[in-house]
């Protein structure tokens, strides 16, 4: 016995920022951003919006749709690169708001975090240790980016997506990797005010765009091939490829290499930008709401992110 996703829920900051609006703030244009990334809007947190409130809202929707009691949740896993606090974890903030006392912890596998969380949840449910696990992916990329660097800040968005998982047999294959190229995509922490080390200001997100693009396209292909081989499937056997929404050009390039039609690679990056580990559950939520995923739909989830990490999962929807 493994898991199935019982429900999903999402929450986005209220402000959607268009490329045109960004063009009034920095030297960029809708044409430049759209043609290189496929992004037209991204939601950016403003005012008193924070990751805890977004996470609670997404979790609330998922719990309601799962038709379970809050007290049925026996584990909370949050995937985030940076919660509202260094500690306690974002998961503990969510647990406090929900009024539950189950184990709660964060994991950081950057943009691959949702698949990492799924694998951990699968193992806890498989062993009978947990029955209902709440997974929340939540990222506030707008506070990690350098807003004076027009080549990166336009790429990202903020948001949260949650799911409740329970007993089932949906996962047919899952594989996680990390390959040691930590310098391609990173953000450095500051030194604090320790008198024993040189003072160092905290940094912003740094990305070697071309290298990340190459990593993403080649790894999506390689990892997909491994998954399909393990299950004795061909690319044609998959109904929907749910790729991490980092850049439309990565998705198009990976799709072309797998020789699959565009409709099998749904995207929503045009409206949300790259929300890191949120992108896959955010897209799943939209596809479920639209009725595009039904019982029996074969999904291949593929994520890649800083580390460089990958996560690949083949799932038959239950």
């Amino acid at each position, binding site marked *: 016995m493994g898991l199935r996703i019982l429900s999903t829920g999402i929450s986005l900051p209220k402000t959607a920022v268009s490329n045109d609006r960004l063009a009034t703030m920095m030297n960029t244009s809708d044409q430049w951003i759209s043609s290189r990334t496929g992004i037209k809007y991204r939601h950016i947190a403003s005012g008193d919006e924070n990751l805890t409130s977004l996470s609670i809202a997404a979790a609330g929707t998922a719990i309601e749709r799962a038709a379970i009691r809050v007290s049925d949740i026996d584990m909370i896993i949050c995937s985030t690169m940076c919660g509202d606090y260094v500690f306690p974890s974002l998961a503990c903030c969510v647990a406090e708001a929900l009024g539950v006392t189950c184990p709660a912890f964060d994991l950081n596998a950057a943009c691959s975090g949702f698949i990492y969380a799924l694998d951990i949840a699968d193992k806890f449910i498989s062993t009978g240790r947990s029955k209902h696990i709440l997974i929340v992916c939540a990222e506030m990329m707008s506070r990690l980016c350098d807003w004076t660097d027009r080549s990166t800040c336009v790429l990202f968005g903020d948001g949260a997506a949650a799911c409740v998982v329970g007993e089932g047999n949906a996962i047919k294959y899952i594989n996680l990797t990390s390959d040691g190229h930590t310098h391609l995509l990173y953000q450095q922490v500051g030194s604090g005010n320790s008198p024993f080390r040189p003072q160092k200001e905290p940094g912003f997100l740094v990305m070697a765009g*071309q290298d990340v693009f190459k990593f993403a396209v080649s790894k999506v292909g390689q990892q997909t091939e491994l998954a399909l081989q393990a299950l004795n499937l061909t690319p044609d056997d998959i109904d929907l490829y749910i790729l991490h929404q980092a850049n439309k050009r990565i998705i198009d*390039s990976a799709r072309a290499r797998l020789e699959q039609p565009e409709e099998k690679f749904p995207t929503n990056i045009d409206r949300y930008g790259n929300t890191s580990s949120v992108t896959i559950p955010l897209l799943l939520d939209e596809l479920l709401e639209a009725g595009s995923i039904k019982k029996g739909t074969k999904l291949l989830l593929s994520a890649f992110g800083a580390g460089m990490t990958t996560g690949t999962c083949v799932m038959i929807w239950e």
Partner: protein
Amino acid sequence: MLDKITKVIRDYKEDPDIVITKDTTFAELELDSLATVELVMNLEDELGITIELDQNIKTVGDLIKILEK
């Protein structure tokens, strides 16, 4: 090598008549930074090698120099 690169570029651009010389720039071919990476990946597949990305690759000649190293 120029012939092989020419073939990969023609396939990528879906234009069998493009004339490529060592002085042809990727900008002239209307290939932005990500398209250049795709082209390099197609070339890797064609030649069966791994090519290190280099920000200084501006012309087809630059690419040939890297491949000949």
